[in-house]
C-alpha cells in the first residue's frame, strides 16, 4: 500500500517535471463569459506528429501577457476591432456599398474565422479571410483591394475573428482542399535557409523549450491576428510566417502567396478543436 502511494507520488512528480518548462495550467475566460478551449486532444490527421494534445500559444506567455487577453478593455487589439466596426459601415468604391450593405450586422460573420482558409467552389481556389474580403471589395463594391496584412485588412480580419471567439477551429482538409493541405504540410517540414530549420524543428520537436528568451509554443494560429506588445499593432498569420522563415536565414515567401495560403490551411488544421481567440495578445 505504502509502496503504491509512493509510486503514485513519483508518477505525479514526473508529470509535473514534464510540464515545468512547458505550457501552464491556467484557464482562459474572456470578459468573464467566453470560455476558451485552450487545450484539446489532437485531431486524427496529426497521429504521426507525436503531438497528442493541442495547446494554444496563450499558455506559453507570461501571466501578465495572458491577463491582457482576458478583458476586452485591456486587449489593445480591440481598439482596432472598433475601427473595423466603423469601416464595416462605411461605403467605399464605385458601387457605393459597405460590408453592411450585403452582410448587415457583423455577427453574421460568426463561424467564418473558424472555417477559413476555405475552398471557394465558383472561383476554384482556396481562400483566406483576406482573399475573400478583397473579392467582396473588388467585385461587389468596386473598391480597391487591400494590401495583404496591411492595417485596414488586418483590422477587419480581427473584427471578423472576434465574432467567432470561443468557437472551435474546424477547417476542412479533404476534398478540393486536400491538394493545398498537402503542399502546406510539405512546406511545414521543409528545412530552409542556412540554419536548416523547419517549422517542425521549433514548433513540433521543441515546443515548451526556451530558445534564447522566447518560450517556444506549438505555433498555433487560432489566436490570429495577434496584438503584439513588441510592435504595438495587430499582426497577420503570413507576416508571422515570414518572420519565422526569415529567422532560419532563408528567402521567405510573400504574404498572400499560394505557398503561405497553403501553409495557413495546414497550420490552422493542426489547431482543429482549439477555440478561435483572435485577436489574441502576445509579446
Amino acid at each position, binding site marked *: 500500500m505504502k509502496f503504491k502511494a509512493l509510486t503514485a507520488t513519483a508518477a505525479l512528480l514526473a508529470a509535473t517535471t514534464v510540464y515545468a518548462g512547458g505550457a501552464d495550467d491556467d484557464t482562459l475566460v474572456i470578459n468573464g463569459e467566453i470560455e476558451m478551449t485552450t487545450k484539446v486532444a489532437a485531431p486524427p490527421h496529426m497521429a504521426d506528429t507525436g503531438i497528442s494534445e493541442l495547446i494554444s500559444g496563450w499558455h506559453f506567455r507570461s501571466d501578465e501577457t495572458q491577463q491582457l487577453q482576458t478583458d476586452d478593455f485591456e486587449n489593445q487589439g480591440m481598439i482596432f476591432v472598433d475601427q473595423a466596426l466603423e469601416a464595416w459601415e462605411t461605403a467605399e468604391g464605385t458601387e457605393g456599398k459597405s460590408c453592411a450593405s450585403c452582410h448587415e450586422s457583423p455577427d453574421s460573420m460568426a463561424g467564418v474565422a473558424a472555417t477559413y482558409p476555405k475552398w471557394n467552389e465558383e472561383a476554384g481556389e482556396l481562400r483566406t479571410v483576406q482573399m475573400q474580403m478583397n473579392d467582396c471589395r473588388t467585385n461587389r463594391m468596386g473598391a480597391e483591394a487591400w494590401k495583404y496584412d496591411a492595417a485596414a485588412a488586418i483590422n477587419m480580419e480581427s473584427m471578423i475573428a472576434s465574432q467567432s471567439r470561443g468557437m472551435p477551429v474546424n477547417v476542412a482538409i479533404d476534398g478540393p482542399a486536400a491538394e493545398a493541405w498537402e503542399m502546406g504540410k510539405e512546406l511545414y517540414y521543409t528545412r530552409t535557409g*542556412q540554419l536548416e530549420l523547419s517549422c517542425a524543428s521549433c514548433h513540433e520537436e521543441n515546443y515548451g523549450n526556451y530558445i534564447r528568451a522566447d518560450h517556444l509554443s506549438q505555433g498555433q494560429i487560432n489566436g490570429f491576428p495577434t496584438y503584439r506588445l513588441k510592435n504595438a499593432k495587430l499582426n497577420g498569420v503570413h507576416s508571422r510566417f515570414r518572420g519565422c522563415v526569415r529567422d532560419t536565414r532563408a528567402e521567405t515567401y510573400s504574404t498572400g502567396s499560394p505557398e503561405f495560403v497553403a501553409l495557413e490551411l495546414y497550420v490552422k488544421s493542426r489547431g482543429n478543436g482549439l477555440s478561435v481567440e483572435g485577436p489574441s495578445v502576445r509579446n
Partner: protein
Amino acid sequence: MKIKAFTAIAALMVAGTAHAEAVSPNDVQYGEYGTIEASLSGAPGDAENGRAVMISRGKGNCIACHAVTALNDAPFHGEVGPTLDGIGEYRTAEELRGIVANAKMTFEGTVMPAFYKTSGFTRPGNGYTGKAAKEEDLSPILSAQEVEDVVAYLMTLKDG
C-alpha cells in the same frame, strides 16, 4: 653555412603552414562519426575569443539553444540542446570541431545548425533579410578560425 640557410628556409616553411589558407567549407573531410582531425584554419584556437563567439547573437549564438554555467553572465540560455557543462571532459577536440562545423555529420537530423557549411541549402537567404542569396555568395556562419576558437573554449569546460 649551407646548413644554416637550409634551417632558415625550413623555419619559414613551417611558419608558412601556420598561415596557410583555411580548408574551405566544401573541402572539409569528416571521419566516419563526424569528426574533423586537423585545425580548419591551420592555427590553434583562442578560447577567449571562442567564448565571445558563443554568446554573440550575430555569430555562434550557441546559448540560444544550450545552457552553459560558465557563461551565466550572458542572459537567456536556451533548452533546445543539452547543457555543455563538462563537454571538454567527455568529447575530444576532433569530435567538437566536427559537431560545430556540421553537427548533422555526428547527430543525424539534428536541429543544430551547421556553422561551417556553404552549400546544399533550401532557399538560402541573405543573412536575416528574408531576401534570396546565391549559393556562391554564401559565407559560413563562422570562419575557420572562429570554429577553432569555439572548440578551444569548449575544451576548457571540464567540470560538469
